[in-house]
């Protein structure tokens, strides 16, 4: 197992946003997370990355207890993430965004990271814009940059937060192809997404979250056939 969550909970005052969440992810697996807005999906990511600390429970990454570890330590251990709303370093260029992620996420000299950053830029179709200031990018390129910057940290576990949201069908298809290629090289992926057909084309299992609780976990076919999931998530009465 690369990641294991045991009874992880997070509350803000009386509001419980993550409620005794338990699941595990195998090395090399792609897991999709779905659930209605406000189900606690992004909070769950923040708990895994360390941007938010859990009130209770235990999070293990690569067999080590990281429940209290700060975000920067988890990145260096191999947890890379993208944000739902792209958060580029706007004053830096696309290349500098990746260079920062590579130099600090992996630790090392800038000069040693150049070729790898260029390779990631090429894979995410950003190479042409390497020297463009990130603040001037379009939404698609910002999403690509989120993915590229997360990749630059050298992750073993890649967390993608609604990376296909807001894209056109063609843009989404291109991005999915990139994610598939990354996954095919052995990177473990956990992906929150509302664009279900994109998600299902990549992941092997789906986890359904509602009111901070895990409702169901299983293969995409089994999950999509589940009456409970269709009622909660898709709003369909079966």
């Amino acid at each position, binding site marked *: 197992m690369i990641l294991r969550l045991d009874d992880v909970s997070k509350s803000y005052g009386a509001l419980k946003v993550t409620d005794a969440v338990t699941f595990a992810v195998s090395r090399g697996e792609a897991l999709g997370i779905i659930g209605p807005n406000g189900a606690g999906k992004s909070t769950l990511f923040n708990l895994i*990355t360390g*941007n938010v600390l859990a009130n209770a429970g235990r999070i293990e990454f690569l067999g080590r207890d990281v429940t209290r570890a*700060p*975000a*920067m330590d988890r*990145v*260096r251990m191999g947890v890379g*993430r993208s*944000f739902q709303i792209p*958060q*580029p*370093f*706007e*004053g*830096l*260029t696309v*290349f*500098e965004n990746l*260079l*920062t*992620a590579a*130099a*600090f*996420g*992996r*630790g090392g*000299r*800038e*000069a040693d990271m*150049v*070729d790898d*950053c*260029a390779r990631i*830029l*090429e894979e995410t179709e950003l*190479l*042409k*814009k*390497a*020297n*463009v*200031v990130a603040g001037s990018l379009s939404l698609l390129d910002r999403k690509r940059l989120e993915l590229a*910057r997360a990749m*630059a*940290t050298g992750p073993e576990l890649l967390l993608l937060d609604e990376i296909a949201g807001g894209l056109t069908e063609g843009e989404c298809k291109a991005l999915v192809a990139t994610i598939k290629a990354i996954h095919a090289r052995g990177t473990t992926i956990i992906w929150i997404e509302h664009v279900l057909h994109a998600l299902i084309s990549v992941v092997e299992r789906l986890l359904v979250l509602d009111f901070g609780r895990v409702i169901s976990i299983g293969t995409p076919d089994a999950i999509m056939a589940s009456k409970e999931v269709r009622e909660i998530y898709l709003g369909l009465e079966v």
Partner: protein
Amino acid sequence: MYKLTTRTRAGTTTAIVAVALVLAGLPLPAVTSRGVIQDLFFILTMLTLAQLWNLLAGYGGLVSVGQQAFVGIGAYAMFAGVILAGWNPVWAILLGGVAGLLLAIPTAFFAFRLQGAYFAIGTWVIAEVTRLLIAQWKTLGGGTGTSLPREATSNILGTDAIRALFGVREAAARDILAYWLALLLVVIVTGGIYWLLKSRLGLALAAVRDNSEAARSVGVDTGRLKWAVFLIAAAATGLTGALIFMQTARISPDAAFAVTDWTAYVIFIVVIGGIGTIEGPIVGVIVFFILRSALADYGSWYLMTLGVIAIIVMLFAPKGLWGLISSRSGLHLFPVRRRLTGPKIEGGI
């Protein structure tokens, strides 16, 4: 196949011009009056303080209005070294840096718990508390202050050689020495900040400035970075304070901890010049010196004029005068941008 470069033609030209200016500045006391040397000393020390405040606020996002605490403690540490320990004033300047560093540790401990405007107010409060505490130090003149003893000012390291070299009196020799030390300090501080920005830490600073949550998510230790910037700025501000008051040879808590002189003017310089650039404080200090020379006789009108100019610049050129020049010309005298060169890459910037 791919290469990283920060070098530009403008950057190389700047380096050559900077070396030429510094070399030309060294023998200047031989051909100019004492008044000019004093003016240059003022410009160089204000530029040093402005570069340091710019490092804090423009790069580190730490908008402090309490930097006078470090000017003051640095100056008082220098006086203490001379009066209480009998140190030569030049060596005692180093004590100013140490004192600035030591004061910065508890200051950061408390102030870093505050954010934004509260951080700014917090640093100001700490500076005021430090001023009130220093005013209780009777050995160093209490609230009214004191002067460097005659035997200390007449024996400052190197002044005998300067007197012999330029044929000047003791006070003028002290001014020349202070000017040279200020020149050395501004070169070290500006060069040091430029080196810092070109290092890995420069990338981290820019990342934190743009988005601290995203910076943490790529492995930047934002807390340690803020500590480092704050301590570096405090130590160098302490050194500058000690140097300023070695030149005046007289100190009082009100002068050494003056928020107007050591923080408000410094913020004005950085804001009108251009925050977040090394060029900005250089442009700003020139504008500030011209305004000061032209308006110094008009009392409070002087301060009001500075305020109005600062507001106008903030409204119409929020990145300062250098920002205006740079955006129109694309000029960067101190380039820090890392460019990727290689196949399939378009020009971009």
